[in-house]
């Protein structure tokens, strides 16, 4: 860990990174936790930790992946510490802006809210953060085949929930 955190240039560089990635980090944290408050705490803590070890980041090009990893780890840490209750669909209206007027969007968000964590996270990583299957596999510790299967099943489950999907979701390939 770097001991010297008083470099103003580095602070500005870090601030620029935060400005660029924070919105999607918040969204990712939200879809991990399905709680706006928790997502804010997760991102806040993650960015503090990221700043503390920013000097150790050698490849600035990998900053996005590095931040996502820290957010994921921080979510797990906070989740474990708080021993949170299972998120109920009743929380949906509270957590997702009830003012959203697009019914299709609301239905999709509700379906995402209800999707199992094991399907929701790789989907968010792929669609929201643009991660490749290999990157998702590396982050989640899963074989690429498993990631592909989960992505496929996640979409099928969403389509089913929206009333436009196939009846069967198929089995999961590879091992988790």
């Amino acid at each position, binding site marked *: 860990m770097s001991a010297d955190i008083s470099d103003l240039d580095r602070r500005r560089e870090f601030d620029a990174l935060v400005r660029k990635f924070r919105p999607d980090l918040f969204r990712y944290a939200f879809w991990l936790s399905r709680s706006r408050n928790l997502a804010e705490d997760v991102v806040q803590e993650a960015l503090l930790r990221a700043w503390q070890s920013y000097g150790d980041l050698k490849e600035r090009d990998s900053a996005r992946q590095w931040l996502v990893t820290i957010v994921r780890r921080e979510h797990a840490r906070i989740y474990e510490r708080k021993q949170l209750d299972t998120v109920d669909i009743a929380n949906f209206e509270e957590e997702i802006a009830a003012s959203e007027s697009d019914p299709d969007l609301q239905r*999709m968000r509700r379906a995402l809210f209800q999707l199992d964590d094991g399907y929701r996270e790789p989907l968010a990583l792929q669609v929201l953060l643009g991660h490749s299957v290999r990157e998702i596999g590396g982050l989640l510790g899963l074989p690429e085949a498993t990631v*592909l299967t989960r992505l496929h099943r996640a979409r099928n489950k969403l389509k089913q929930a929206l009333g436009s999907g196939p009846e069967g979701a198929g089995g999961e390939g590879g091992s988790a």
Partner: protein
Amino acid sequence: MNGRDRENPPGGSTPQRHASDEQFEELLARALRIDVPEAMPATAPRRSPPIFRWAALAAGLLMAVGLSVRMLQNTGYIGTGDLGHDVVAHIHHEPLAIRTPVVPPEAAVPQAELETVLREAGANLGPMGPMVRYAKLCPFRGKMVAHFVVQGASGPVTVLLLPDEEVERPIPVDEDGFIGTIVSLPIGGSIAVVGEQGEARLDEIQREVAAAVRWRL
């Protein structure tokens, strides 16, 4: 969205299916992109972590990675002997508190939240003009102190309430692009008021805060 590595669903492909898939993907991408709070969370009001959380964090860091005294001094947990330097080090330790130059009025810390921080820090704050946009109870030189940020003319201005730090005369702060002063209070103790170079309201904020602070007995 990123189209890399898209899995190929079974069942072949027709123009209708393709259009439907595109609509689905567009809807999925939109659904995942929920609204992000404007000023979250560096400048927005948020819960203050309890004292034990910081103490545990400091202790955990010490045990886990063997942080040096130098590191602790850099974070302001313990003093270096140079009060001005310790104040700037503490500001660096919480960069998110001053990330945004100007925040909207709705980012003001709720009064109840501010009072909680002040109460834990043994202080009171009377009415004052500058908007408080961040407030937290922080370890500083071995004590828990109120650390808050008010909105200046062009950027954030950090204020530390230091009931246990006595200074004989104003101590100027000029380090790493931060300027300000640590001044004693007639009621004892001192306050540090530090902004970025060029901040026009520093003196005014210092006077207002100094007049508003009361220590709890």
